[in-house]
């Protein structure tokens, strides 16, 4: 570790992993509820479990991104963090607000939560992924602004690298687009239109910049390849991301009341969205092949290449499958969407956070060359368990989606209703649940790898 203040990343990473585990446990509950809707009713109904599952995902990824920024920005800028104290204060504020919100979801009915938190003063609740009470949303804004201030001031006083600039651009975009969470028009079309400015422009826009920056940082560190070479790739990737992703928002605007030209804009531009992901994969393999050093932390390099590959499959291939308007006409909001959502979020964002954790945590714990070999071996098992299980979940959900579309959407007469269709699909949901369990095993194995070889110092480089 080069700078003392990088240590503030540690609580962020640890808390991110705790929330990740929580997310997966709620995923298991949901997996069971797809088979038997009354599981855990009335204590944790489906809508609450789903809200907790998706909200935990977003919050743990934000903790991960923040930890990543606090770790890599001082090193890139070659200076201590502007204010480590502020970073720790925002950590505790964010953690407390996050826990309170999740407890609010679980302990009181959603309507009561809206009432207690004064949602009628500035109504923002009730939209998918943005269910947080208004007061929590204001908290998120305050935390993110103080975080960007801290990171921005560090970059300003230190070295400006391409990685830093791409990262801060992504983070500012994240903050700006979140503001649309406060805009809640009465007109349902406008409501959906701007809701996607948060959801889509995050995951298919600015978050990809954050992903690109973190991946580039880790690749430089584990391969020793020239920064200039990696930066060229990064420029090309983010340019293509923005060219395809911004107008690609149109693939959410099909048949929701927006003008018909979105069918064309959405189809054409989002069909280009796999290209930057393919390039990211090309460059990850290429850079690892050109490596000049043999890193002690081999598993971090595996996670980095794995991220690029799984992101391509999840975001690129599974996104493309249902992005064209004529296909989406039948698949809109079916289990195909769920399949894509799972593999894309895991492959692109969960895995990049795990990548930086696997690279940085050993160093933060005083193991400059990575964890001992025994720990890396266990971590490698967790890598394969998680990746294979998530592909299993995705294939199961894809099969469920195809089945659902054929029963519920394709027939021009006598189509089955939603609930009847879901009942038909239950055998596939069993397969999904089994892969959910092996994924959980992967997460637990990953967590266990942190406790292996505690007394050994580091891998031999």
């Amino acid at each position, binding site marked *: 570790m080069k700078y003392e203040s990088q240590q503030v990343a540690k609580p962020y990473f640890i808390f991110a992993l705790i929330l990740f585990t929580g997310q997966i446990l709620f995923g298991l509950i949901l997996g069971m509820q797809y088979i038997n809707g009354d599981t855990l009713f009335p204590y944790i109904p489906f809508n609450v479990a789903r809200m907790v599952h998706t909200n935990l995902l977003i919050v743990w990824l934000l903790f991960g991104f923040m930890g990543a920024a606090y770790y890599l920005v001082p090193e890139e800028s070659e200076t201590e963090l502007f204010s480590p104290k502020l970073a720790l204060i925002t950590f505790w504020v964010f953690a407390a607000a996050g826990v309170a919100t999740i407890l609010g979801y679980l302990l009181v009915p959603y309507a009561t939560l809206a009432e207690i938190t004064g949602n009628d003063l500035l109504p923002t609740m009730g939209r998918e992924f943005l269910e947080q009470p208004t007061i929590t949303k204001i908290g998120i804004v305050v935390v993110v602004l103080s975080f960007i201030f801290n990171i921005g001031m560090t970059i300003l006083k230190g070295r400006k690298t391409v990685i830093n600039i791409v990262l801060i651009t992504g983070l500012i975009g994240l903050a700006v687009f979140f503001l649309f969470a406060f805009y809640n028009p009465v007109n349902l079309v406008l409501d959906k239109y701007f809701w996607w400015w948060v959801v889509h422009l995050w995951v298919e826009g600015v978050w990809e910049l954050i992903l690109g920056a973190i991946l580039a940082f880790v690749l430089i560190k584990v391969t020793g390849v020239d920064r200039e070479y990696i930066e060229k790739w990064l420029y090309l990737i983010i340019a293509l991301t923005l060219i395809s992703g911004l107008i690609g928002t149109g693939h959410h605007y099909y048949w929701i009341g927006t003008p018909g030209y979105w069918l064309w804009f959405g189809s054409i531009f989002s069909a280009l969205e796999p290209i930057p992901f393919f390039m990211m*994969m090309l460059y*990850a393999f290429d850079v690892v092949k050109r490596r000049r050093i043999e890193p002690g932390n081999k598993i971090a390099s595996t996670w980095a290449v794995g991220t690029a590959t799984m992101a*391509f499959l999840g975001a690129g291939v599974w996104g493309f499958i249902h992005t064209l308007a004529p296909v989406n006409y039948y698949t809109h909001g079916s289990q195909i969407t769920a399949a894509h959502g799972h593999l894309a979020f895991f492959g692109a964002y969960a895995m990049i956070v795990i990548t930086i954790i696997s690279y940085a945590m050993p160093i933060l714990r005083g193991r400059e060359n990575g964890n001992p070999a025994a720990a890396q071996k266990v971590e490698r098992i967790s890598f394969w368990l998680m990746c294979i299980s998530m592909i299993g979940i995705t294939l199961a959900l894809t099969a469920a989606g*195809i089945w659902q579309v054929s029963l519920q959407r394709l027939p021009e007469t006598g189509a089955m209703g939603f609930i009847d269709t879901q009942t038909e699909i239950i055998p596939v949901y069993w397969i999904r649940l089994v892969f959910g369990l092996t994924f959980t095993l992967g997460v637990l194995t990953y967590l266990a790898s942190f406790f292996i070889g505690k007394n050994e110092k580091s891998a031999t480089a």
Partner: protein
Amino acid sequence: MNRTFGEAPPTAPERYTPANPAVWVFVLSEMSEFAFFFIAFLLVKFLNPELFGHGAERLAVWAGFINTLILITSSWFVARGVQGMKRNGDRRRTAVWLALTLGAAFLYCLVKYLEYRWNVEHGVTIRGDLFFSLYYYLTFNHLLHVLIGVCVIGWALIQTLLGAYDRHHVEGLEGAATYWHMIDLVWILLFPMLYIVG
């Protein structure tokens, strides 16, 4: 090669994977996609045997057959292109082979156009029945892949002319050729499945 008794055998050649591994991930995901379509086709066929019995008889087998020949020949062109670069670093010759590949691709598109026109004249339409819907979906999807392949080979041709490849740097060229072979392979499976067996 004469080795005296007791001499150590030559070390095994280093394992060589052509092209960037990312290309293989892409090719494998494309092939899985087509495998899913094939499985779906066979399932629908299994459930509707009477519908599929006579479907193939109404298709333009000549067009499918000509396109099979065109694609196999194009794969030979692209392989010769890669070979030319790897053996002699001969840019001009590689460019000619790649241009021939592109020519074959355009010919494929022309035959496809004639086939679709012939279909309309003979009352084979996308809404005809389930077999024809699947036939159009699969063949149009394959056509889209050929068009992506045209962009990929076009890119490799430009790179060749710009001098980006030489005897020892052929990764991009190999990647383009690998993708092209995938298109060919899918067609070789698609042709008998649709046009012959039906």
